[in-house]
C-alpha cells in the first residue's frame, strides 16, 4: 500500500516521462508558446527561466487573438503573469 504510483511506467508509455521540473529543464533552448493570464501569447525561443517562472525569450512574437501584434528580439516576462508554457517541438 505504501508503494508510489507507477509514474514512470505510465509516462514511459506516452513518452512524457518526468516531473514539471524535468519539463522546465527540457524545454530550455526550444521554441515555446508562453500564455499569460491576460490571454496574450508569446512565441519564441526559450533562453532561460527561474523559480518564479520569470522567462527570457529570444525572437519573440506577441499574439493577441491569434494575430502577431509585436516582435521583440529579446523579452523578459515577469513570472506572475504566466499561465502556461507549451513546447512547440519535442523535448
Amino acid at each position, binding site marked *: 500500500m505504501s508503494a508510489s504510483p507507477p509514474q514512470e511506467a505510465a509516462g514511459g508509455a506516452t513518452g512524457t516521462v518526468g516531473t514539471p521540473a524535468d519539463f522546465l529543464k527540457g524545454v530550455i533552448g526550444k521554441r515555446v508558446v508562453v500564455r499569460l493570464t491576460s490571454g496574450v501569447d508569446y512565441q519564441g525561443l526559450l533562453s532561460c527561466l527561474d523559480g518564479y517562472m520569470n522567462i*527570457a525569450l529570444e525572437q519573440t512574437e506577441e499574439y493577441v487573438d491569434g494575430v502577431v501584434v509585436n516582435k521583440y528580439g529579446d523579452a523578459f516576462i515577469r513570472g506572475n503573469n504566466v499561465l502556461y508554457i507549451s513546447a512547440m517541438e519535442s523535448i
Partner: protein
Amino acid sequence: MADLSAQVQEPFDLVRLSLSERVFVKLKGERSLVGVLHAYDGHMNMIMSDVEETILMVEPEEEANGVVQSVKRNLEMLFVRGDSVILVSPGSR
C-alpha cells in the same frame, strides 16, 4: 547579439545587460513605457529616465466599433513598481 544566449543564464541577466540602455516595458492596464533603465530589483521595480509613456484607451462613446486611441506623455525620471510589469524588452522594441 549573436552570443547573447551564452551570457544569459537566468532571466534577470537579460535585464542587467539593458542597464543604461533604452528599454521597452509593457505594463498592466494597456500601458507601455520606453526609457533608459538605471536600476531594478528582484521584484522588477525599476527606475528609468527620459520616459515616454503610451496609454491605449478604447473610446467610450462608440463602443460598437471599439476605436482605440493612444495617449502619450513624457516623464524625466520615473520609479515603476514591479507588480505592474508584464514584459521588458531591450532596445526599445
